[in-house]
Structure formats: structure tokens, C-alpha cells
């Protein structure tokens, strides 16, 4: 099939085809970038924390009663509180810790080690009680904390730490990390690594989401405490209902704040969910609209050229020739649009990518978008092209 006649025929309606080409180009640019953003957000959402997120709930208290001014009172009370929480049916484990998964931050510090060249940054959380049973992560190397790891005097720093596998890898490669020492600054107490947990991810600035040091320390003082509670699957509702009354019966001189980790996670990903929903809707509507547009243009092209089609048929063109003509015409337009669209896709990517979200356009995505729009374009031309094949040759002899 020669392109010559098709292109010559198209020249009569240059502007019209220019608009369609532009429309297809912008569509490709939007679709590829939208898919790119969706994939990026999904990747963030699918990153597992490693914890039993759905069965975790945090309860924090702040005291106003005067007896809380005594550290010794608080020490005893926290133990009582933990026992009270444990006694609630459906509670699997409880710990005190300032660590709150999926809150989009936490606490961190800068550390030095015996081996690693220079300093490194990692998250740092003090915890007491069954912290790893509570989170639902296993200490896969070395040992977990025991009660004697926490010094009796709250002013004495702790000497041991349990770190994440990712951090151990970064610091010591494949060597055994147990027994190595981590310090912060001169004169500070060195902490010996006694155990490794495999799974840990908590989103944090500076890309230190997988790096953590847990220390056996107090996540409570005279200003309040935070407990992290893990429930049996399905027991969340009943446990949450009983937490506050239980602890109020231990001491009523305080107020509570209960947060489900699943809620925190939802909140943390709310922006991502908005992007995914909005972009999905935009892609679907856009492909649909572009299809409608191509259908409109091609049926207009057929309607205008009824007489010419009849003439061609009378001069010996087969129905297949007519079908081919219109499909090829569309293919040319779509291809021109897609070539322009590739430039647009990369251009829009540069415009959308900021310093913060470094999502580069992948060529597979652009290729996929092109295939999608090629198919979309051909399918949208078929109805009009089919109609064109039905034009009888006799129409050539009639006047309009």
C-alpha cells in the first residue's frame, strides 16, 4: 500500500490532523507520567515495615497528678501498667517505647563505629519489655534484651544495642556484627551490638528508613509514658475499648491518647492514595476521550469523502483497499502523535520531577504507552473505516 496518496489526501485537512496529533502527543505524555507517579507511590506503599502493623496500637499517657513527679513512683507504675495491659484478653505483647511505626519520623542520631570510616546516621529508640515480640520481628542473630540490660539508675546509660540487618550490612558488610561497638562522640558510653533484627523499615528523612538502633532504656519519665501493644488478630476492637479503663483503674491522675498503627499508616499514605486515585481516573478518562476524538475525526473523514470512496471503488479498489486506506491514515496520524508524545513524555517528566521525588521516566513505560495508544487509535478508526467499505461504487455516478 503506497503512502503517497494517503499523505496527499491528508494534506487537504492539515489543521484537523495537526490537532489530533497534538492530542495524542499530550495523551501519551500524561499517561506515561501518570503511570510513573502511580508506580512510584505504590512502591512506597508496598514497602513492608516488617511489623504486625494491623494488630498494633499505641497508648500514651500524660500525668497531672502530683505523685508522678517521683521517678521511683513512675518506675513502679509503669510495671503495674504493663501487667494491667497484659491481663486484657487478646493482648499478645506489650512494651514501652517511643518508637511509633509509620508516623513518618521518630528520633535519630549520628554515630561512630570501630570499623566504619566516618560517621553514620540511624534511627534510635529506647524500649523496655517485649519490644520485638510486640513489633512482630525476630532477633535472628545474637540475643534479645533481658531485664538486666536496663540499668537500675535512670541516669546511667545503657551499654548494649540491637540493630537492623540493613545497618549491620552497611557497617560491617558480611562480617559478624555481634560484639562490635557503636559510640556517639567522645566520652560517650560505647554500646555493644548484642543482636540483629532482620526486618525494620520506618520512613525517615535522610534515607535512613532501614537503619535503626534499639537500646534497652526507659520510654517513660515523670512527664509520661508510651506503650506499644500487639493484639491477637481480630482482638483490636475489644482491646482498644479496655485499654483506658484498665489504666485509669491503676491511676486516674493522667490522660490518654490511643492511636492504632493502621490509622497512622493510612494517614502517612493519604497523599499517595490521592495521587493513585486521581491519576488512575485521569488515565482512564483520557484514553476514553482520545478514542472518542479519533472516532469523531475518522467518521467525519469518511462522511466527507463518500463520493471519492465511491469513485475509487468504481475504478476497481476493493473493500479491503478502502479499509486499509483509513486504517493506514489513522496509523500515520497516531504514529506522528506518538513520536511527538515521546518528547512530551520526557519533557513533562523533567517538569514534574523535583529534588524530592526523583522518579525518572523508564523507556519501558513509554513503549507500553505507545502500544496502548496505537491499539486505541486503530480500534477507534475501525467503525468509521468499516462504514467506508460499505460505500457502493454506484455513488460515484450520482451528484450529491
Amino acid at each position, binding site marked *: 500500500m503506497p503512502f503517497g496518496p494517503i499523505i496527499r489526501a491528508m494534506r487537504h485537512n492539515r489543521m484537523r490532523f495537526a*490537532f489530533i496529533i497534538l492530542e495524542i502527543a*499530550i495523551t501519551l505524555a500524561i499517561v506515561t507520567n501518570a503511570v510513573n507517579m502511580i508506580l512510584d507511590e505504590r512502591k512506597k506503599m508496598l514497602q513492608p515495615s516488617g511489623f504486625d502493623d494491623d494488630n498494633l496500637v499505641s497508648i500514651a499517657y500524660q500525668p497531672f497528678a502530683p505523685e508522678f513527679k517521683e521517678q521511683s513512683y513512675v518506675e513502679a507504675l509503669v510495671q503495674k501498667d504493663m501487667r494491667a495491659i497484659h491481663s486484657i484478653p487478646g493482648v499478645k505483647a506489650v512494651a514501652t517505647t517511643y518508637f511509633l511505626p509509620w508516623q513518618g519520623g521518630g528520633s535519630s542520631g549520628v554515630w561512630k563505629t570501630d570499623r566504619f570510616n566516618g560517621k553514620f546516621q540511624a534511627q534510635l529508640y529506647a524500649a523496655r519489655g517485649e519490644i520485638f515480640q510486640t513489633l512482630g520481628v525476630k532477633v535472628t542473630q545474637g540475643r534479645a534484651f533481658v531485664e538486666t540490660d536496663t540499668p537500675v539508675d535512670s541516669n546511667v546509660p545503657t551499654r548494649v544495642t540491637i540493630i537492623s540487618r540493613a545497618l549491620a550490612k552497611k557497617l560491617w558488610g558480611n562480617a559478624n556484627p555481634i560484639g562490635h561497638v557503636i559510640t556517639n562522640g567522645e566520652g560517650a558510653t560505647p554500646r555493644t551490638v548484642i543482636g540483629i533484627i532482620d526486618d525494620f523499615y520506618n520512613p525517615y528523612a535522610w534515607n535512613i528508613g532501614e537503619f535503626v538502633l534499639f537500646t534497652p532504656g526507659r520510654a517513660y519519665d515523670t512527664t509520661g509514658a508510651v506503650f506499644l501493644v500487639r493484639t491477637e488478630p481480630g482482638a483490636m476492637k475489644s482491646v482498644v475499648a479496655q485499654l483506658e479503663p484498665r489504666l485509669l483503674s491503676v491511676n486516674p491522675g493522667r*490522660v490518654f491518647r490511643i492511636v492504632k498503627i493502621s490509622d497512622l499508616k493510612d494517614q502517612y499514605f493519604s*497523599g499517595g492514595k490521592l*495521587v493513585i486515585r486521581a*491519576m488512575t481516573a485521569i488515565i482512564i478518562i483520557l484514553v476514553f476521550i482520545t478514542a472518542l476524538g479519533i472516532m469523531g475525526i475518522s467518521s467525519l473523514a469518511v462522511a466527507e469523502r463518500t463520493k471519492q470512496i465511491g469513485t475509487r471503488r468504481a475504478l476497481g479498489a476493493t473493500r479491503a483497499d478502502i479499509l486499509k486506506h483509513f486504517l493506514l491514515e489513522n496509523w500515520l496520524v497516531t504514529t506522528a502523535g506518538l513520536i511527538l508524545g515521546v518528547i512530551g513524555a520526557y519533557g513533562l517528566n523533567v517538569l514534574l520531577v523535583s529534588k524530592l521525588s526523583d522518579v525518572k521516566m523508564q523507556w519501558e513505560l513509554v513503549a507500553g504507552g505507545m502500544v496502548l495508544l496505537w491499539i486505541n487509535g486503530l480500534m477507534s478508526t475501525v467503525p468509521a473505516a468499516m462504514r467506508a467499505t460499505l460505500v457502493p461504487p454506484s455513488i460515484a455516478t450520482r451528484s450529491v
Partner: protein
Amino acid sequence: MLLYQLKIALTSLRRNPVITSLLIGGIALGICVSTTFIALRHVFEKDPLPGKSNTLFYVRLDNWDPQRAYVAEDPKSLPTMVTYRDMRELMKSNIPTRQTGTFRSRFFVHPDPKIGRPFAEDVRLVFSDFFTMFNVPFQYGGGWDKAADAKPEPVIVIDQNTNQKLFGGANSVGRTVRLEDRNYKVVGVLAPWNPPLRFYDPTQGLGPKVEPIYMPFNFTPILEIQTYGNSDGWKGNDGNGFQAFLNSDTCWLEYWVELPTPEKQQAFREYVNNYVIDQKKHGRFGRPLHTEVTSMPELTKELGVVPPQIRSLAIVSVLFLIVCSLNLIGLLLGKFIARIPEISVRRALGASRLQVFWQHIVECEVVGIAGGLIGLGISVGLLKMVAKVIPNGDVVHLDAEMIAVSIFLSLVAGLLAGIYPAWRVCSIPPAMQLKVQ
């Protein structure tokens, strides 16, 4: 003339309701999506203090670890907040017309037992200039004075909700509120104040709202008030206790200055640099000299308070609108071309090209406006849905400016879709068509 053209346009639109509703639907679709996301961006990116934000400056100093930048990969990065000791020293300057160091803490409010149990509430520690600098609106009373700053006097400002909770909404100026174990005198009650961003605290992103209670900053060392906001440290404190924390290199305060003239801005920048150079002699500030005195609009841009996704959605939604109107070109062409015999007759009867052109443009703009209004209506609903998904979403709404933008966009969309088809039909010679007929 315009009225006549409007009449013809409406007649023509009524003639083919299917095509007309397709046209209006296309524009409505484009407008509702673009208005929603442009409005969303506008809510978070608009200037919180028009006319004033350019005179408010945020101060940062690079007191971080000599061996390692604040963001390790970016040697030009510096802490987003300042230390207590540096803020204290810098505030001795009289170059700024107003200034405040500030941070967020949390206190227990002990209401009259008849009202309810004690509750914990966010409290912002500020200097008296804070209220004037950030145009904080008052319903009753006002901020405190410099004398109350200096002493400090036990005074507080509370917001409307707290006033409702504690005093039933009455004018509570002069009455007392117990925070922890002290009584504070209410000097001011805020009018409703709900800016979309806590713009005076650039470290917190979109999440939290403005605080319900404000008290004099100088209570900080006396009551040993701890921050509930971020605090970034890179080395331990020298010694134990609160004083050691205050003297440390830990960054935990926001420090704002008001510098109305370029001369003052220049002078203050020099003052800050000289302070750091002097501190270097005392062994602090081990990194290369780097200070930033950044205006509020630049700071918002730099720290990226508004998530980049919101900006991306706005850009994509405008392109979406363009596709929607390009798409209507085909439809309009078909519609107008079908009308060629009628137009030829009108042209032969003396209608000028321009008149024919204008008539079709008017028709397209009628479609644009109709689609725009429908789209605007839908976007109100869409924004409500968006508001439910994002944190602090209740501030999301359409303001007059956005409604104007939306209507402008629908006119542009109508024009974009209609200009080529209208030009095509008006350039048809009258005689030719008559001949064929």
C-alpha cells in the same frame, strides 16, 4: 448584536441536543478536574500574608558537625532550625523591627472541675512580636507587651475553641487559666484562625494546625519547657540537665525576623555573619561560614512544604483540560461543516465573514461557559472528597480567585476548541454552495 448571536447560538445548540451535551460534557470534565487540582495547589501555595511575607525572614546557621553536612549527601545543606544560645545572642540585635524565636510544647490545662477532666494541649512559646508579625487575628484583647516578655509575666493568649471550652465563649480577657501548676492571665482570645499551613513553622509540613494556646517564650528556661516539635542534634550535651541542653548545639527553635527594607536585610545578614565569625573564635561553627536569612515565600519553596505531588497533579490536570478541548475540535468541525449550506445562504444574503466567525465563536463560548459552570459544580464535590483523603483537609475550598480562574479556563477551553472550526466555516465562499444547491 451579541444578543442576536447568542439567540442564534442557543437555537443551533438546541437543534442537536446529543452533540451539544457531548460538547458541554467534554468541557465540564476538563474543567472539573483542572479546577479541583489547581484549587488544591492554590490553597497550600498561596501567600499566607499577602504584602507582608516578603518582609519576614527565617534565620538558619550551619552549626552542624564539621565532618559531616546536615544532609550528608548535600554539603550545602544546613539545619532547618537554630539553637537556643544562638537565637538568644542574635535577638540582641535591634536591626529587625520585630523578631521572635518560637517552638511548640504541650501543657496540661486544668479547667474548673465542673467543666471536665484536665486535658493536654499544644502550646506555642513566642515573643510578643509574634502576633503582629504573623497578622494573628484577635476576637478579644490582644497580645502581651515587651514588659511581659522580659519578666516574664504569666499571661496567655487562647484560641476560640479553647475559650469556648473553658469560658463558654465569653470575653475571658482578665480571667485565669491553670496550666500545670500555675495560673496564667488571659490577655487575648483569637478570632477564628485556620491557615492551611502552620506557615511560621516550616518544619512540620502539611500536618498540624495552629496551636490553641500561646505563652511568653521566656518561661522556657524557668519552667524547663521541652519542645514537642523536631529537635536535631549532632553531638551530646556538655553535662546533664536543662541548662546543658540550652547551651548545646541542638537545633530546635524557629527564629523569625521582620526586615522591611533592603538596607535592613543587608545589615542583618552582615550581623549574622559577624556573629558566626566571632563564634568560630570560640571553637564553635566548625563548618565553612554558611548562614541563610530567607524570606517566607522563598523558604516555602525551598523546604518544599507543599508536597510535590500536589504540584504535579495541578500540571497534569491542566494538560488534561487541553486534551478535552482539542478533542472537541473534531466534533465542532463536523457540526459546523454540516451547516455549510445554511451558512452559504446567510453569506449570500449579506452576512460578513466576521459575523459568521463571531457567531460560531459565541456558540463555542456558550458551550464553554455551560460546561465550565457544571464542571465548577462537580469540582466542589471533588474537593470535598479530596479534603477527606488528605491531612488537614478541612481548609480545602474554592475561593473567589479560583472560581474566576475556573471560568476563565472554560472560556479559553471554548475558544481553543472553537477557533479553528469557526474559521473554517467562515471562509467558505457563498456562491459555490449556492451553485450546487
